[in-house]
């Protein structure tokens, strides 16, 4: 049954490569879901705020990895 273990490991690897990157994405999603709606911001800001945070997480994570060489 080693192939089952391999497939499960691969399935997890589909979503998580760099742990801190995945955690940052999940935290930002949680903030957008549970925190931002309570701040009373205009509804039209919701989508752009979600995107801006994701873009920042991507940029920061890749730049940090690039600087580690």
């Amino acid at each position, binding site marked *: 049954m080693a*192939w089952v273990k*391999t*497939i499960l490991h*691969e*399935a997890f690897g*589909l*979503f*998580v*490569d*760099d742990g801190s*990157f*995945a955690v940052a*994405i*999940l935290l930002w*999603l949680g903030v*957008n*879901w549970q925190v931002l*709606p309570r701040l009373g911001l205009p*509804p*039209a800001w*919701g*989508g*752009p705020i*979600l*995107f801006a945070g*994701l*873009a920042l*997480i*991507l*940029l920061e*994570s*890749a*730049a940090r*990895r*690039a*600087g580690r*060489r």
Partner: protein
Amino acid sequence: MMSIAWAHVGPTILAAFLASTVEFVEALTVVLAVGTVRGWRGALAGAGAALLVLLLLILAFGPALTRIPLAPMQLIVGTLLLLFGMRWLRKAILRAAGIIPLHDEAAAFAQQTRSLQAQGRSTRRWDGVAIAAAFEITMIEGIEVVFIVIAVGAGGPGLLLPAGLGALAALVAVVLLGLVVHKPLTTIPENALKFTVGVLLSAFGAFWLGEGIGLDWPGDDWSVLGLIAGFLAVALATVSICRTRRLSAGAS
């Protein structure tokens, strides 16, 4: 409804086709190595058995997807798609910037060939090593394709079929190319494909997740095109920033 179709169908087919192409090319490399080293009977039997298992899984669980309410489905699919898409995009950015090496199908083929040769010849009619190796790689890459199809197709009404057709077209294209070329598809610009797919999947993920948690999108369904443009711009800028950081780190 028309705007949903026109705004989402094209990117859905494209995302499913490109992402599935990447996965099928990786599977083809290993199946070719298995067939070349250990014989085509085992290679094709293993790959065929895996495709059959995947088909049965889709038939067993696929109909259940249509019974899940749309909002929770968008939340789950959007989250998984964001994790998956942004992971691909980050890796493609780092490869494009020269931070990590490009994926090399020829090297993967050579490594797989060595590994299969090291396991000795089989005297049996059905070579267990060949069947297992072809089955495993086809299952691994196939599950990724099934996930991609579900993830890009399940977030909106009527999108599963276009996503499935995109993946099917990729399977046919890669199999035909494999039959014609008969060696690993090294000339496929894999990182450019992954970069594009990462942008598309990230955009879909953000859109479905936003829909799932009740966010307002400017332009409604058409905002997915804006998200694609936004992720593309950010990704290209990040490649440039990473290149600069690599060069400055090398100079110091």
